[in-house]
């Protein structure tokens, strides 16, 4: 096995594909985050709507990724983006929504009702209560959702190579079709290392953003 040699010789491509992979993941995560967190917060005010939104997100998660990429094709083809990065990002966003929306919803719902009562009773507006109390307390759980979404998205993005989105999946896909073992392993290794790095990084962010007061063992 000459994986070292392969990586050494193809360093440029490894880096390019790795960055491309990260780009896909972070773009999707970013979109999922700016849509998912507000959605998760919004549905805490309406239990029936919450159930519907969470059901839809749940169903989306059950669709196999390769199938979802396939479905993207006819849907986005009329706009001329049936293949490539756009359908990949759309699919990754859809996958990420569930852990993000669900964790946000649960985290906000679980904020001790006496804190909400005290906050409202002292005269905080809805927005102030959210900003000062509910979100800071919910942050660890919301970030855990993001973390789950990130790790999952890194894995699924590898499959997006089949619809021409690029990323480390390219090594795996091409390696399989060419029976090129070193190439497959390089791709798989790269995806795993990315997942571990991102997971560790997010754990660190989670720790930094959690208020000291929440870490004290009462």
């Amino acid at each position, binding site marked *: 096995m000459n994986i070292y040699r392969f990586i050494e010789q193809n360093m440029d491509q490894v880096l390019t594909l790795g960055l491309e992979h990260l780009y896909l993941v972070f773009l999707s995560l970013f979109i999922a985050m700016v849509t998912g967190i507000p959605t998760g917060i919004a549905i805490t005010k309406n239990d029936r709507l919450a159930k519907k939104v969470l059901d839809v997100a749940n169903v989306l998660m059950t669709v196999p990724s390769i199938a979802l990429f396939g479905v993207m094709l006819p849907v986005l083809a009329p706009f001329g983006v049936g293949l490539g990065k756009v359908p990949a990002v759309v699919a990754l966003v859809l996958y990420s929504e569930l852990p993000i929306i669900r964790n946000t919803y649960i985290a906000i719902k679980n904020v001790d009702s006496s804190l909400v009562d005290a906050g*409202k009773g002292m005269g905080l507006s809805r927005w102030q209560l959210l900003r000062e109390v509910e979100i800071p307390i919910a942050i660890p759980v919301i970030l855990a959702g993001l973390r789950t979404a990130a790790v999952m998205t890194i894995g699924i993005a590898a499959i997006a190579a089949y619809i021409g989105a690029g990323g480390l999946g390219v090594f795996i896909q091409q390696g399989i079709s060419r029976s090129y073992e070193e190439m497959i392993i390089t791709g798989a290794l790269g995806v795993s290392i990315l997942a571990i790095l991102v997971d560790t990084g997010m754990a660190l962010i989670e720790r930094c953003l959690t208020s000291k007061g929440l870490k*004290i063992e009462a």
Partner: protein
Amino acid sequence: MIEYRNVRKVYGNGKESVTAVRDISLQIKPGEVVVFLGPSGCGKTTMLRMTNKLEEISGGDILVDGKSIRELNPVQLRRSMGYVIQQIGLFPNKTIYENIAMIPRVLKWDKAKIDERVAHLLKLVKLDPETYSSRYPAELSGGQQQRVGVARALAADPDILLMDEPFGAIDPINRDQIQDEFMRLQARLKKTIVFVSHDIHEAIKMADRIAIFKDGKIVQFDTPEMILTQPKNKFVSDFVGADRALKVLGLIRARDAMNTSPKNVLPAEMKSPEALEFMVENNKKTCIVLDKGKPVGYVTPKLLKFEEGPVTDVTEPFQIFVEDDEPLREVLSSMLMDSMAFYCVVDDNGDFKGTITYLNIQNKILEFYDDDNN
């Protein structure tokens, strides 16, 4: 000044509706502590929560300083009232300083003024600002947390405080202490306080007036004395308890029951033989010796026998003095554990004010009930 006018609260609608508060009217005067007292589910908490619009009123109106709360923005209204709850509700993600500074900060006070206010409030509730400002709620005991809860409610200096069983979750020893401190604070601050409680002892201790709730209505709205001595019906007397005469003891001070002109008093300069003669003649078993208006101790004929000098030579010091503002409950408790037949009542300076005996206490209680039965 808070005025409730035919206030009604109905939950749900149609056949399944539940009426929690039925057309209650009452007025709370500025600087007054009114306790809403009653069993759970009687509507007392709902009534309190309608005051700051945490619950919508279904009918009637509540006027705060003459203005209908229906016309006021809930956020503005709530900022004009402090709110303290049983679960305390300190924000765990914020330090004690940040918790107290919350509303002043939202009101855009400048930093120096907030700093000063927080330090002042922490001192008021007997917590050292230097030690506690930067701590988090989880680092404080329940009693300390509720002190912060009270400080937070006072932050923007509201005229009105709404308190929903604020000391209910604190252990009995600390509760007693925090209630005492709170009453001392209230004596200085003179806030208008609406206080929800299910504890009759607490109500008697804190209230200027008590409103007893039952099934969404007020059964009796009166001073603690009147509630104890003249319960309006069986519900109130049952709620107050069979030991209400003992509870009355908590309301009467020693100075109200004492004998202000006892005959068994001797000046410190008097010589022993003279004193003995006086005691035998008047058939006194014990005499108090007063030196410049202060009781120094007591003498008995046995102590005076065969003595020649001034009475102070043989005076036995008192073990216990009663402060004139001590409740009879405590005086009686001391008497039950002690062999003294009477106590000297003294004021802050230690000056002699009178004496108090079992008989004085009993007479006072009887008098209390007689007054009311007329």
